[in-house]
């Protein structure tokens, strides 16, 4: 019996016994370590007689592979057993609560403003802003509402001085004036923002939000106004069809002026927009009065267009079924949590306004 076979037989029988990881590693080192039994046999290859060399090398490789495989197999078995044993001990109650997290929310008015901006962005409007404190001229006079005009009665104004020169803007319309004074036509803007009237009850809050729209160009007519608002309402309420009614009205800064109603019905205590026989007033609009254009140095014989003003809080209430306007500004944690939006829900054109 050759040395090789002896080594083989001896170790195969050793490996058949019950061994732990240390013993296996010992065997591995005895065989394949620097001076291991198998390793030293490899050193012999060079000095063996040429005629036997080939066979010897081949036998040696076979034995080496056989033993190596067996050892690896054994090691794997033990490692697997060890892991299984460990896993058995490590079982944990996964129904225990996760680490706590807090969810932030975006206020429904902010979300609604973003929805509105997204819709008007599609049809080429850009967003303008103006200050909350306005002078009497921008808020009234420039908008064709001179002092002593009865229309001023409709705006319960907060004043900041006794001469009534500085005030909290009663509507977003002064942004029209600022925009037109700053640039040259054409104009195509919306201006969302805070507005103020000294009025406070269930349906009126001393502060509320409006979005102003202004589109001035060479050939803008009432048909464009109707089309723009029809598009906006449909997109905003995410409905295919909308029942909408234009009704003559009066605002000093537009002529002709209109109020716009949308059809609705109450079904199971829930409001359904766009259908039904009830009318709900949602905005005021009209063709910008030539006097206003003159006041901002725009030639009314060359340029004309429309303007509109929409109550944002009202839109949010209708779309999201919020009953009480006052709650918007009450900061009740429960309300904010319920009606607020996840900050990742950014209204965009491609993913849609809402989920």
């Amino acid at each position, binding site marked *: 019996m050759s040395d090789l076979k002896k080594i083989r037989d001896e170790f195969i029988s050793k490996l058949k016994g019950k061994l732990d990881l240390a013993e296996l590693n010992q065997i591995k080192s005895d065989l394949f370590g620097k001076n291991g039994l198998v390793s030293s046999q490899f050193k012999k290859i060079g000095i063996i007689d040429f005629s036997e060399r080939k066979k010897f090398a081949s036998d040696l490789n076979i034995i080496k592979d056989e033993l190596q495989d067996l050892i690896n197999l054994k090691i794997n078995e033990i490692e697997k057993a060890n892991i299984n044993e460990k896993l058995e001990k490590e079982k944990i109650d996964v129904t225990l609560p996760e680490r706590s997290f807090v969810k932030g929310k975006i*206020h429904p008015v902010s979300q609604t403003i973003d929805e509105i901006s997204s819709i008007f962005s599609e049809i080429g409007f850009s967003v303008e802003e103006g200050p909350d404190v306005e002078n009497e001229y921008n808020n009234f006079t420039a908008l064709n509402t001179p002092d002593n005009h009865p229309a001023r009665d409709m705006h319960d104004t907060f004043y900041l001085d006794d001469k009534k020169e500085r005030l909290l803007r009663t509507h977003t319309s002064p942004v029209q004036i600022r925009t037109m004074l700053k640039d040259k036509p054409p104009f195509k803007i919306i201006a969302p923002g805070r507005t103020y009237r000294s009025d406070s009850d269930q349906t009126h809050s001393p502060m509320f939000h409006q979005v102003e729209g202004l589109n001035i160009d060479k050939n803008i007519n009432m048909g464009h106004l109707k*089309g723009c608002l029809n598009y906006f309402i449909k997109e905003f309420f995410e409905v295919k069809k909308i029942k909408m009614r234009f009704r003559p009205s009066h605002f000093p800064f537009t002529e002709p002026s209109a109020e716009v109603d949308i059809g609705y019905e109450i079904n199971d205590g829930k409001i359904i927009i766009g259908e039904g026989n009830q009318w709900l007033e949602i905005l005021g609009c009209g063709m910008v009065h030539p006097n206003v254009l003159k006041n901002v140095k725009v030639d009314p014989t060359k340029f004309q267009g429309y303007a509109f003003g929409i109550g944002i809080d009202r839109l949010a209430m209708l779309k999201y079924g919020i009953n009480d306007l006052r709650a918007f500004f009450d900061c009740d944690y429960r309300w904010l949590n319920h009606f607020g939006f996840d900050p990742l829900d950014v209204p965009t054109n491609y993913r849609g306004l809402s989920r």
Partner: protein
Amino acid sequence: MKITFDWLKDHLKTNLKEKNLLEQLTNIGLEVESVENLSSDNQLFKVAKIIKTEKHPNADRLKVCDVNVGEKELKKVVCGATNASEGLITIYAPPGAIIPKTNTKLEIAKIRGVTSYGMLCSESELNLSDESDGITELSKKYEKNIGKSYFSKSKSNLIDLSITPNRPDCLGVKGIARDLAASGFGRLIASKEKKIKFKTKQTLKVKINKEKGQGCSAFGSCLIKNVKNTESPQWLKDKLISVGQKPISAIVDITNYVMLDINRPLHAYDADKIEKGIIIRNSKSGEEFTALDNKIYKLEKGMCVISDNKGVLGLGGIIGGTRSGTEFDTKNILLESAYFDPRSIRNTAKKLNLDTDAKFRFERGIDPLSIETGLKKAASLIQEICGGEVSKIDIQKIESYKTKTINFDVNSFENIVGFKISEKEIQRILTDLGFVIKKEKKFLKLTIPTWRPDISQQIDIIEELVRISGYDKIKTIDPIKDRSKSTLTQTQRLFHFLQRAIASKGYLETITWSFTDQSYNDHFRETNKEIKIVNPISSELGVLRNSIFSNLIMYMSKNLDRGFKDLSIFEIGPVFTGSNPGEQKTVVSGLSAGKKSRLSWIDKERNIDLFDAKRDVVQTLSEAGYDSDHFFIDSKTPNYYHPGKSGRIFLDHSKDKVAAYFGEIHPNILKKIDIKTENLIGFEIFLENLKLSRKTLKDQKLKFSVSDFQKSERDFAFVVNKDVEAQELVSVISNVSPNLISNIKVFDVYEGENIPDNQKSIAISITIQSSEKTLNDKDLEKINNSIIEAVENKTGAKIRS
């Protein structure tokens, strides 16, 4: 403006139904606010007969009556009237009925121990007359009506219209009829003027003073002598009641009727109470008079008053005075029909805080040519109802009215409105509305009706035409999806980014009012000017906020009172630095209260602290594109922060503008407002102080370069004086060899055992890596030494061995 269809029919011939009317009114811009049936409430009042009366067992003056109300069983009603006797036919109000005079609802009640099922009514209780002595006595004719409703059911509903301020003409029923007729709803009935015999001259002298700011330009009057002022006839009472007006006396009722019918306010004086003649003049400062509302008004200089020798009789076009008011025994009256300037009316009424029907009409503009029509209409009615002789009409004027014309280009209509109507239709509509048309070569020359002060230019004519044609004819032109300018500016984008970035860190967004409670504001005002609102809604909302904290802390406190303990809220919005337009800043302000990991089985519970807020701010700014490695932080903060536990952040070492504050809210403030929390941490980010990069995002991205050479991490511990800030060490280290030091992280601060009393140990981990080669031990040793040397030299620190 309240009308009924019946009244409209005085001026409008139509076969159409009320339902069509309501639609049409709204369609032409006379918005229907509400429709109500006034008679539905009084249908409960029934004709009844007293069958038996007995003396009340516990009260001498009361009777217990058995009343037949048309039902099987008789009703027991307790009644105190002396005329309540067996066989009397009267009016019975059941429980649930509302008594018109007192507006109270009847209930089944025990009166001195006897249950009374309803009430027997006097005429005054039913507003039928002033007769309050005893219950109503009906004639035998009503015997067959027992059990039936006493009041006949009114056919006409009360229609309340919201008339826009540009349409004074529609504050008269006739004006509404004219608009309806123009729109094709019926035909306008031409008003017939009754011929009156003017027997005498108007002998009372009227003079309008020609003075600066005279508010009256024309004053028409006539004297009616020997009248007998009585109650109005039923038709007139019914008419006024049908639109919710209370009949008073024939003369007052007639003036009211003419006002409502043709929008011509009138005033009737008791001529015998006028001393000599009438002078219309500006008031003198301090003059007083008692008005018909029984209040004494003290006048300022320059108000338009009607006066006589003795003094002020009334405020022209606003309210008359008690001294010259008509009463039932008035014999001779002076009837006034004048034109008052809207501006003057409005100024005076505003200063005196007075609102009357006449004022409402005059300030919107009355038809200046209706002076005579009004006088004639009223005078003939007075003569008809009260008798008397009517004098000739006297009209004093200081300026005469000129009719106005407009040249109207018919093509302008389509240009503004987008659809076309024929010139023939244009002419028809305008004629129906009262315009006089003269056709010229290129345009129509239009004479504006005198009752339309709102019309002055071409656009107003276009409005009339489209309003009457119908807004439903306007086409819907779909918008084109095209954008030539970006929707948001860079600042607006940053606003939205910060808003959502803060919310994504667990803060609930709030929107609070831009005004606040002065006492809360004072805590956060610092050296800012207080900006008072002259007419606040309440004293608690009296100032514009100088900081968002004032509101946030108030609402935080409210939420804590609701039982929520761990809460983060924020707001992004304006704070005000002055009362001029533009003196405002946009601030993102957040507040957090309570603990982290409260009642956690896994994490250790701790108070929320300033490093939570600092993380939120730094992370947000860093997400918004500002490199936090460049931030400079120090501890100079406003007084409302805890002086030792707050900081401010600059975007870089140039310390140009404060980007943000963060820290604990000052404990004194928490104590003063008694807020119930373990801890309150806040931050403020100032939008306008964040520099906007001129580069777009694609240009901002630096070239991607990483080093694959081995990096080495070394830890250092330095002992420094307590007042040395960690930032100082980091700053020194980062300057040692910027190319080789890729990361510096402070990972421990230690004070106590083994460290001298006024010193602390700061442990810093530094990553060293070259982009050119693998550094060998020698290189690393060199850098280590330079780091230690630099820190020791510049901060007085000692390396801990």
